[in-house]
């Protein structure tokens, strides 16, 4: 509830959204054509996709430049700050639901489809007629169709990655307290460490993927275990990449002296996003790796 009126800054016209719309079109059409051409070969989809990504990067740079300048020139009232915060929270909620769909698929496979294929409940005939040799066990290292793979353990790289991400959540919190208490050195130091931890996580994740593909025969198409493993960790990895990029931009802004102790929406949003990515990883670690 707004107690008193504050001037709400409604920007005049902006060219960036339509640039972004063209970029999205090129990405969607390019990605669609690219995927189509994976089987048929040839074509221009990949180039369109790259062009679309360039347009989107151009748009993001222009749009954020615009917004940062407006913010630095004091056009934004506390009421607008609340709008941004609420907008970011709802965006993160939508991301939670996106991951929810893939976790849902994982739980459905583990609780229903795999046991049913193994003859559980009233599905004895499914197993007996279709795949009599199939054993319902999780991780599903041998699919009903006969594909074989190995399961990824939780020790080693995944455990290190968990510790790295958990630590990064703590460091970004210290960076935040540094910003709130106007201790710029603490802010810069801990933010830098957070970005570094993010990069190390991504590097180890890439190592894990290479290990899975080359030595464990665990691939994206290795049945429902490989599907859920790679799509969940993959989408999480994409989000870590994005989060690291956002933190890096925030870092550059910190170096330029942006953000005040009581006014730092961009930092807050980046930090929320980072905590969200961290929580997703914890769920992943528990349900994909350990159990």
């Amino acid at each position, binding site marked *: 509830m707004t107690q008193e009126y504050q001037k709400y800054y*409604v920007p005049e016209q902006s060219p960036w*959204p339509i640039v972004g719309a063209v970029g999205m079109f090129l990405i969607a059409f390019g990605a669609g054509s690219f*995927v*189509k051409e994976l089987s048929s070969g040839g074509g221009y989809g990949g180039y369109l996709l790259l062009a679309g990504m360039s347009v989107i990067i151009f748009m993001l740079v222009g749009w954020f430049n615009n917004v940062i300048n407006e913010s630095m020139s004091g056009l934004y009232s506390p009421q607008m700050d609340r709008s941004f915060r609420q907008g970011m929270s709802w965006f993160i909620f*939508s991301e939670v*639901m996106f991951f929810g769909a893939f976790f849902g698929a994982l739980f459905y496979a583990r609780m229903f*489809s795999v046991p049913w294929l193994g003859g559980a409940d009233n599905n004895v005939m499914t197993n007996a007629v279709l795949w009599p040799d199939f054993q319902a066990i999780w991780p599903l290292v041998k699919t009903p*169709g006969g594909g074989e793979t190995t399961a990824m353990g939780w020790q080693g790289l995944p455990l290190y990655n968990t510790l790295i991400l958990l630590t990064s959540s703590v460091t970004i919190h210290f960076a935040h307290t540094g910003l709130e208490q106007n201790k710029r050195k603490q802010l810069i130091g801990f933010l830098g460490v957070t970005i570094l931890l993010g990069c190390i996580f991504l590097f180890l994740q890439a190592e894990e993927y290479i290990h899975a593909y080359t030595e464990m025969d665990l691939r994206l198409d290795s049945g*429902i275990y490989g599907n859920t493993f790679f799509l969940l960790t993959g989408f999480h990895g994409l989000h870590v990449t994005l989060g690291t990029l956002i933190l890096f931009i925030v870092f550059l802004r910190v170096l330029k002296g942006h953000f005040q102790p009581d006014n730092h929406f961009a930092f807050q949003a980046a930090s929320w996003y980072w905590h969200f990515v961290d929580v997703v990883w914890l769920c992943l670690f528990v349900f994909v790796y350990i159990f």
Partner: protein
Amino acid sequence: MSKVIEQDHHEHHDHHHPSGGIKRWLYTTNHKDIGTLYLWFAFIMFLIGGCMALVIRAELFQPGLQIVDPDFFNQMTTVHGLIMVFGAVMPAFTGLANWMVPMMIGAPDMALPRMNNWSFWILPFAFFILLMSLFMEGGGPNFGWTFYAPLSTTYSNDSTALFVFSVHIMGMSSIMGAINVIVTIFNLRAPGMTLMKMPLFVWTWLITAFLLIAVMPVLAGAVTMVLTDKYFGTSFFNAAGGGDPVMFQHIFWFFGHPEVYIMILPAFGIVSTIVPTFSRKRLFGYSSMVYATASIALLSFVVWAHHMFTTGMPLFGELFFMYCTMLISVPTGVKVFNWVATMWRGAMTFEIPMMFSIAFIILFTIGGFSGLMLAITPADFQYHDTYFVVAHFHYVLVTGAIFSIIAAVYYWLPKWTGNMYDEGLAKLHFWCSLISVNVLFFPMHFVGLAGMPRRIPDYAIQFADFNALISVGAFAFGFSQLIFLYLLIKCIRENHQVPAKVWEGADGLEWEVPSPAPYHTFEKPPLIR
């Protein structure tokens, strides 16, 4: 309801004037401009999707295959559904929200105006991709708008990738639009506009926006799994790899059922606004309306499997989803009761918005009752995938959602344009639509109960008479909408000035600003008692 006791009518006309030409529409951050764009886009899509429905009805006019080949028929049913759901009904409601929500709560604009522009302009591109795929080699999507696996994975044509990415864009557009609505309502209400003073249209949109943010990402997940299953060898929906085609239906309908309420809750809000105006009474049971809307929204998350009774769920699942579904008729019944009670002993007049609203109440209730029939698991085994289902959801979507949108347009058109529409043409439009829509959809109940399956380009000879009648109704309904198009253009171009308060019994902040509403309203917030 709220009353304005002080308001600054001196809008700042000296700046922020819309620049002329195409740039105004491409670069705009104004909620009224963006609302107009959404509404025109929705109407164009409605006509395109309608033409596809007419192709379907032309083919079904007689038994046998006459006009189109079955694959193209499948593409028509698929793209008709996608366009009507994502291109017509949802953007129309978003357009109404853009126009009306800031004006109803005394806000200067939407909370995030640039994102508002972006969420609109990605939509035409999404539908451009979808429509273009129809003209590509192999044709467009042909697996039904529900894109069940394995139809959309193993058996689909190569344009599925384009379908997937265009649905991704539609989803992003909806999510951004919903975030904007929700933040506007939570953060930009004028001082004194408490939550329980908000007009019901604002309330229903708040809850709709929550549903959108909750389920559109799940749709994105579903299409992503279809993409990887088809092109990258995953087996989410393939039993040979440990997945399950039925899992697709679970994920899809977890999105799909709240989606149904996304398309009807704003309609409830519209009718709850219009009925009191022309009954010259306050809305009966305002707070029960709010709670009923919220309960419908919450229940919508636990009823999805009533779309899949025949997939062989465990008995407990069938019972759970049957009872939860029937439970929804309680809050819905509260709403219908409240509308009728609002009209009871009111000083009623029957302007066009009211006519459409009354038609909505009666015909939507018919759709609701057939829904109740479908909710009964053993009965659903008979109705499943027949024209009875088609009749049911067209009663709730055409005479429900679409009628409410038309009612809203007639109700607020004088506020938007400053001109009164041609009453005679509007009456013609109403009666033509009302009669033809029932000729179109009512006989579908009968052929459905008799066993005519949906989504099939041919049918047994005993269904011929009713199908011919249905097709006549379809063409009549389709052409009736051209009256509406003509009326809209006429209203925009002609000059029949209306006062600020267009309707005598109308209540709400939007009637306190001049007609047409100035480009910027409430730069200073109104005070609300």
